């Protein structure tokens, strides 16, 4: 049986199913016992699994994420909630030098299976320290897998995959896509039919949300949904956009990106992360180093510019990669 679910409920189902069956999984993070994690992925788990397996921590991110890494080395599979990716600043060493590299530095002798749930993104006027994406920053770390579902079906399937992975997996969700109470009415395109039974969605494969022939629009997290909105607009104007969700940054499905651009000859890369030294450059380069003649027109980036996120709505709305900017870019590409 399948139902229409939010990403939040879908992710919760995957974690619940795995926790019921695998005693090595436990949850850790600020307020997870009472609040169930930033996206409700652990909603009700405090009561169900008890304080030994659903552990609310002090505000000590280096400490508890480092402890998760240690617990993983000792045979557990921790699921850690870091709430906002803006907070990686206080615990980045664990991501950069410990959880990601221990398997390698030990020549394969030690494994660090753990899943780190982090919320990304802005668009709700939470200003420069609570609105960042920074997915490029974590994707640049070798030894960490980085995935980023944008809809409920993928949220459940990719979380099952993460929980069965033997590695450190950074599991990102854009706050605006999750379908949690404090972000208003869920975005339609984040909802999906979700089977009740467990299933996995493999890492490292793009998802083509919508096929098209004129222009490829890649996105991830929220920018997928802005791209879909733009594609709807463009369709009315006779422009056929193919919307490609990257879904997984490490591993990255380079073939999937190239295949779409080989078909359309035009590329718009949308990204809510800062523009430079990030995902947008990597996607364009992926095509260019394969074959620059695939581009009928120069590819275009529609991203957050290289500026801190401003608080006031008129400024924030102007700098985010929203549907209007994406559609404009497509129109220019087709002109």
């Amino acid at each position, binding site marked *: 049986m399948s139902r229409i679910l939010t990403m939040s409920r879908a992710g919760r189902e995957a974690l619940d199913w795995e926790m019921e069956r695998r005693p090595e999984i436990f949850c850790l993070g600020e307020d997870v016992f009472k609040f169930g994690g930033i996206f409700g992925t652990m909603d009700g788990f405090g009561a169900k699994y008890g304080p030994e397996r659903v552990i609310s921590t*002090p505000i000590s991110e280096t400490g508890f994420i480092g402890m998760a890494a240690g617990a993983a080395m000792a045979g557990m599979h921790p699921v850690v909630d870091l709430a906002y990716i803006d907070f990686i600043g206080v615990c980045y060493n664990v991501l950069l030098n410990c959880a990601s590299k221990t398997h390698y530095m030990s020549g394969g002798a030690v494994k660090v299976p753990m899943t780190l749930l982090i919320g990304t993104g802005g668009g*709700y006027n939470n200003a420069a320290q609570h609105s960042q994406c920074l997915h490029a920053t974590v994707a640049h770390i070798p030894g960490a897998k980085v995935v980023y579902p944008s809809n409920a079906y993928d949220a459940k399937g990719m979380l099952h995959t993460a929980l069965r992975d033997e590695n450190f997996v950074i599991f990102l969700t854009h706050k605006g896509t999750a379908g949690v109470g*404090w972000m208003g009415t869920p975005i339609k395109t984040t909802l999906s039919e979700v089977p009740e039974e467990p299933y996995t969605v493999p890492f490292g494969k793009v998802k083509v949300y919508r096929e098209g022939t004129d222009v490829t629009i890649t996105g991830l997290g929220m920018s997928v949904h802005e791209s879909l909105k733009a594609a709807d607009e463009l369709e009315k104007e006779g422009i056929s956009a193919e919307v490609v969700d990257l879904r997984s940054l490490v591993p990255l499905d380079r073939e999937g990106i190239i295949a779409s651009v080989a078909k359309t000859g035009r590329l718009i890369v949308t990204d809510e992360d800062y523009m430079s030294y990030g995902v947008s450059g990597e996607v364009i380069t992926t095509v260019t180093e394969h074959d620059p003649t695939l581009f009928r027109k120069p590819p275009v980036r529609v991203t957050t510019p290289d*500026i801190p996120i401003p608080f006031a709505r*008129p*400024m924030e709305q102007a700098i985010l990669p929203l549907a209007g900017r994406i559609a404009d870019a497509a129109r220019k590409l087709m002109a």
Partner: protein
Amino acid sequence: MELTAEQRKGLYRTMALSRAFDDAMIALYWEGKLPIFQFGAGPLPGELHCSNGAEPVGAGICAALGPEDMLTADHRPHHVAVARGVDLDRMAAELLGKKPGLSQGKGGHMHIYDPSVNFASSGIIAEGMAVAAGMALARRIQKRPGVALAFIGEGAANQGAFHEVCNMVGLWKLPVIVVVQDNEWGVSTAKSESTAIERNADRAVAYGMAGEWVGTNDPDDIYAAAARAVARARAGEGGTILEVKTARLTGHFMGDQQAYIPEQMKQVDPIPLYREKLIREGVLSAEEADAIEAEAKARMARAMEFAKAAPYPDPSEAFDHVFAGEAA
């Protein structure tokens, strides 16, 4: 270090103004967010962490300071900012994201900066610890006076930055006061669930700092402890961890139902208590107290009017101030 009656009235005035500020913001916050709650909606969007209940800390401590002293606050900065004398109109405008706001609409409520009164804040837990200590270090090198105060919550005292900075404050005998505002909660986590020992003031021994603990949420007591800490700092005797038992009456942020708070842990509003005390002690009459409150509300109403009437920044201004010294 005894407060005069006039000074104690001042404390009450400060607390009333701070409360008026938050109450006005809370009222506005819900505009556009009902029936469907959403951080991003309405004229006052984003997370909003109000200071209701913590007013005695801002009032009591700032009364012990001089203009040369420096303050950093956290994600819950209003009560400290109001007590410090941050421009009320421009602070209100900043919360609404308006152009005449302190940060021209770029900061919002967690990012209140007013260099004219040496005030800064940050939304990252314990970030202000080092910033305050660095300001104190700067003054030492400059051979200028000034005590620096970092206002944090009891939850923040378990962040690594607390340790690193306290150690350097102790090591270098810097004039820094770490104000730990123990409101019992870090979001939904009680202090007893986050902190291995009962009092952060007791951690001072780990750093060669002095510890002060104030168990009442009363501005007279807070002032007295702060005055002692400031005197030590000015005398070159080093820093203090000053912990105050305070309150968080309106939840972690707006939207927090606080269902996790058991009945016996319900907190008391310190403002009526102080009002009663001042009346009881003959410092204020009930009429004077009413007048102070009315005046605070009126002042805040003007600030709100200013803020509401002010224009938004132009979208293109988002690109200004990324770097100093450069044309936009």
